[in-house]
């Protein structure tokens, strides 16, 4: 689920940070640049793990700031295909489920990857939502928001930034995980305990 990635970056250190120790100042700048940001094909930046080396410190002509080349390791969130992760239910509609990890919300379980056979019925408590029900041995197992849900990663995609966006479309997500519930042992934890 989490990996370390070694990254080299050249950054300009603004002069108002000169009062801080160099390590701290660069760490703060890197956190602003990489933490909680998605890097395409790498994953979501979680935290700066350590700084390996700081080189340079040149002041280029006509600039009032020094420029450093930094090598550092970043903790990234990048699930692998086939990984089993525990999440919570965020939305449930006719197209499938949307799950959330708290720090990452763009996990979708489309209808074809729901447990087979399953059906959906309108949620009595919420007009816009539906409730998915897995039918097994003539018993019904509903998916409600009470339990944590285990899903298996089906694929991870990094959509490119759209040039035009409709007014009522969903907000753009730079990293989308498609999950599956269609195997034994997946779904709300209470189904299996």
């Amino acid at each position, binding site marked *: 689920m989490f990996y370390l990635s070694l990254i080299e970056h050249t950054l300009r250190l603004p002069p108002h940070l000169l009062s801080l120790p160099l390590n701290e100042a660069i760490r703060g700048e890197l956190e602003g640049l990489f933490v909680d940001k998605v890097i395409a094909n790498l994953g979501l930046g979680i935290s700066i793990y350590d700084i390996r080396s700081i080189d340079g410190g040149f002041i280029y002509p006509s600039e009032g700031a020094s420029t450093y080349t930094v090598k550092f390791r970043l*903790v990234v969130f990048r699930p692998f295909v086939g990984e089993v992760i525990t999440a919570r239910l965020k939305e449930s509609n006719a197209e499938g489920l949307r799950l959330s990890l708290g720090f990452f919300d763009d996990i979708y379980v489309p209808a074809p990857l729901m447990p087979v056979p399953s059906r959906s019925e309108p949620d009595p408590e919420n007009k816009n939502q539906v409730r998915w029900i897995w039918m097994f041995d003539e018993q019904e197992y509903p998916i409600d928001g009470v339990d944590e849900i285990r899903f298996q990663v089906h694929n991870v995609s990094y959509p490119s930034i759209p040039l035009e966006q409709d007014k009522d479309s969903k907000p753009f997500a730079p990293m989308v995980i498609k999950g599956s519930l269609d195997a034994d042992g997946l779904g709300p934890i209470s189904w299996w*305990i």
Partner: protein
Amino acid sequence: MKILEANAGALTNFEVLDFLRSRGAGRDPTRVLVSVEPSEFKVYDYLEQTAACNQTRQSIDEFLRKCKSIKLAKAEILNIINVRPSSLVELYPIIEEYDTRFGEAAETMEEFVESVVQLLPAPPNQMESEQEAATDQTEAPDGEKTEVAE
């Protein structure tokens, strides 16, 4: 930005949680004084709810030694540590092609799941239900007291 090494090593949930704790995420109730970003607190909150929150380096080391007896891929071991399956059916989706690889060795797998339960501590929400199950079995004399407390 240049990515020198996209994969410089995988981390278990426990290692990430340990790292965030060492930065001071667990010590500050106000969440303002320590230099931990709000997004890092979200990760911390998530990990505190998973099996990682009670694990220690020793328990994971011991579990890794136990894993050597069974042919598992590194990613599968990592996933088992993160999820901590407490029954065979929970282990099933984690292991690729379970039926062809371990379909016949049902007994050894059951032993393996038992060792998972023994060596890795339970996540906080499951701990209560497991404890309740244990007290139900032994018919604890202070059963009435706990009912009152609830």
